């Protein structure tokens, strides 16, 4: 029942958007309100899982399942969706988009949300793959909403790289299943995650290693782990702001979720730190590439995209550092979802105001639009990991987990990571400085985009501050439950 409440609202929203033509603002409002139902269901799942209860299943062949890990991701995806739907173009603000474009937007973004929610509630890892592939398709259709050269180019690169990546992830899934078939013969539920995990200790480590490399490269492409991150600045920079917000927060989280699901199976089969070491290596590479790309970025949207690559690296690190690291990484994932779902919307508002996404054009932000500028500054300070925001806590926990490791080389890696964070920090702060102060170009009209929009954004920032000051008991219980599932 809760599963229906979770998955049906985005489908209904898509249907409403399709049927009502031309687009009316009431559709946008209705869809935003409907997404609250999904969020409610996700929170109910999370509460259920935080109490340590049995994971509910639903449908023929236990099609859907919601353990703690799924529940956490459902909350992340549903919350980011609700936020972006309220902040979407054509919902209570003037917009540059035509009505046909707004209708297409509402249709596709709700289908996109539906695929993400299906991916995290699917029990079968191949169904999870199907849902993730569907996210690529819907988002690639939505990126070139305005059909200009840059967005078409970004979309083509995105779908090509994304499709190849996801195809390799499928090859990995098949290789995982291959060993299972060799072991027990064909079985209908064999690809259900709990069944897979139960049989994992008997699988051949060599085969699982090969499968995991395919899966890590494949889903890593979707998550934007370096060196498979090249589509990120293009796609995030050119997509409609609300979609970029959703892709960088929710879709990224779902891709990391897929990697984590398989990592648990791989760990059970391989029995050494093979997967951990791969994640640590790619994590460091992501951090390095992000740090130096931020230092070169001249466009604030692309700068935010490189910040995503940076946090991808940090979360990879956490997942490779054992139980304490997984706890920190998942907390970081929650923080990142809250911060990024705001930042790209704010960046979109700034671009609309200044008519450019170049850093050197967007000067004097605090005098032109104090609320927008202030929120943007708060969000960026949260992203670089300053207190009192949540990311300070999760990064602190992450580095503590890293420095507590026995291996000297892991501690060396952590030191290198800290240095790279510092490099990125300096670049972010100088760029933020340049945007906040200075003389605004003469043609820019002062004023906020729409005053009520400040409320949901402020809510996101307050959530980040709250996570920086305390760790709420339900969240802690949920994360503890997940760590119990993930690292045994």
């Amino acid at each position, binding site marked *: 029942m809760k599963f229906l409440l979770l998955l049906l609202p985005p489908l209904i929203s898509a249907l409403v958007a399709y049927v009502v033509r031309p687009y009316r603002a009431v559709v946008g409002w209705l869809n935003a309100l409907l997404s609250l139902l999904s969020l409610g269901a996700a929170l109910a799942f999370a509460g259920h899982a935080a109490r340590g209860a049995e994971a509910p299943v639903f449908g023929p062949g236990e099609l859907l399942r919601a353990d703690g890990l799924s529940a956490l991701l459902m909350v992340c995806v549903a919350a980011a969706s609700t936020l972006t739907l309220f902040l979407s173009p054509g919902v209570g603000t003037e917009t540059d988009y035509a009505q046909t474009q707004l209708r297409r937007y509402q249709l596709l973004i709700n289908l996109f949300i539906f695929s993400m929610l299906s991916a995290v509630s699917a029990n079968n890892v191949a169904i999870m793959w*199907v849902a993730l*592939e569907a996210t690529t398709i819907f988002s690639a259709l939505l990126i070139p909403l305005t059909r200009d050269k840059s967005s078409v180019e970004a979309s083509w690169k995105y779908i090509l790289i994304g499709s*190849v990546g996801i*195809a390799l992830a499928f*090859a990995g899934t098949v290789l995982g299943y291959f060993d299972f078939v060799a072991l027990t013969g*064909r079985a209908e539920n064999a690809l259900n995650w709990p069944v897979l995990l139960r049989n994992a200790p008997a699988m051949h480590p*060599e085969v699982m290693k090969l499968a995991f490399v395919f899966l890590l490269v494949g889903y890593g492409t979707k998550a934007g782990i370096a060196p498979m991150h090249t589509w990120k*600045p293009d796609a995030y*920079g050119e997509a409609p702001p609300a979609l970029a917000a959703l892709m960088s927060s929710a879709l990224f989280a779902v891709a990391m979720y897929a990697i984590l699901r398989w990592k648990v199976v791989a760990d059970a089969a391989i029995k050494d730190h093979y997967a951990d070491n791969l994640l640590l290596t790619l994590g460091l590479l992501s951090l390095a590439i992000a740090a130096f790309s931020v230092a070169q970025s001249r466009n604030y949207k692309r700068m935010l995209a490189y910040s995503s690559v940076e946090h991808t690296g940090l979360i990879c690190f956490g997942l490779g550092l054992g139980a304490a690291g997984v706890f920190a990484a998942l907390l970081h994932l929650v923080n990142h979802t809250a911060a990024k779902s705001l930042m790209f919307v704010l960046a979109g508002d700034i671009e609309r105001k200044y008519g450019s996404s170049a850093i050197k054009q967007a000067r004097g932000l605090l005098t032109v639009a104090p609320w927008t500028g202030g929120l943007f500054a708060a969000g960026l300070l949260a992203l670089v990991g300053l207190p009192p925001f949540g990311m300070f806590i999760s990064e602190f926990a992450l580095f503590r987990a890293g420095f507590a490791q026995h291996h000297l080389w892991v501690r060396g890696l952590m030191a290198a990571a800290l240095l790279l964070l510092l490099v990125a920090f300096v670049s972010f702060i100088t760029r933020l400085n340049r945007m906040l102060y200075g003389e605004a170009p003469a043609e820019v009209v002062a004023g906020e985009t729409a005053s009520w929009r400040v409320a949901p954004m402020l809510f996101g920032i307050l959530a980040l501050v709250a996570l920086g000051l305390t760790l709420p008991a339900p969240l802690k219980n949920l994360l503890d439950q997940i760590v119990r599932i993930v690292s045994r």
Partner: protein
Amino acid sequence: MNSNDAIFAQLATLGSSLVLLFGIALLWRRSLVAYVRAFRWQSLALALVFALIGYFGHNRELYIVAVILVVLKVIIIPGYLSRLYERVGGKREAQPYVNVATSLIIAGLLVSLSYSITRPLAPVSKLPTRNGIPLAVGLILVGVFVIISRRKALSQIVGFLVLENGIALLAALGTYGIPLIVELGVFLDALMGFLVMQILVYQIKDTFESIDVEQLSRLRH
């Protein structure tokens, strides 16, 4: 191994080799017509491999998959592809980034590479089809290479379709086919992905007045 299995193993290897060969054909042909034709033959060979495994492995579901394969990848998608290049023009692949001789050498290296990376699979599997597995992985790598080395958006699409065929072949040979519901989802995604790529090609044609991906280099820093 009884004689039935021996014949099955021979036929499966033969079929897989054919599928791989049609993939490599993309590397020495230039015209998009030839690309589409090669893809069509490849998909037909793939459907035959599925039917073969269905027959010897006593799995009726694979016949259904084979029929869907023929409808989708031998009839519908090549049909769309032909219409696509008639509308957007550019029937010939421009000079690729890598010339034919080098491409073929690279393809050879990729297939050898796939033999070495799939070595851990050989002792695990007792299936008669296991000899074809390196060929399937080789085809996946060749597909990626086609995508990287071609300049026309349409050739990249064909490269992607070939890559997908490689994965389908891997699934069939390694596991006698994944569960039908998953297979249907995969087909749906493949079709949708293809249609979206086709839409994007039209948009590239409209905005750039060319489908040479060399032009797609506006986004930097």
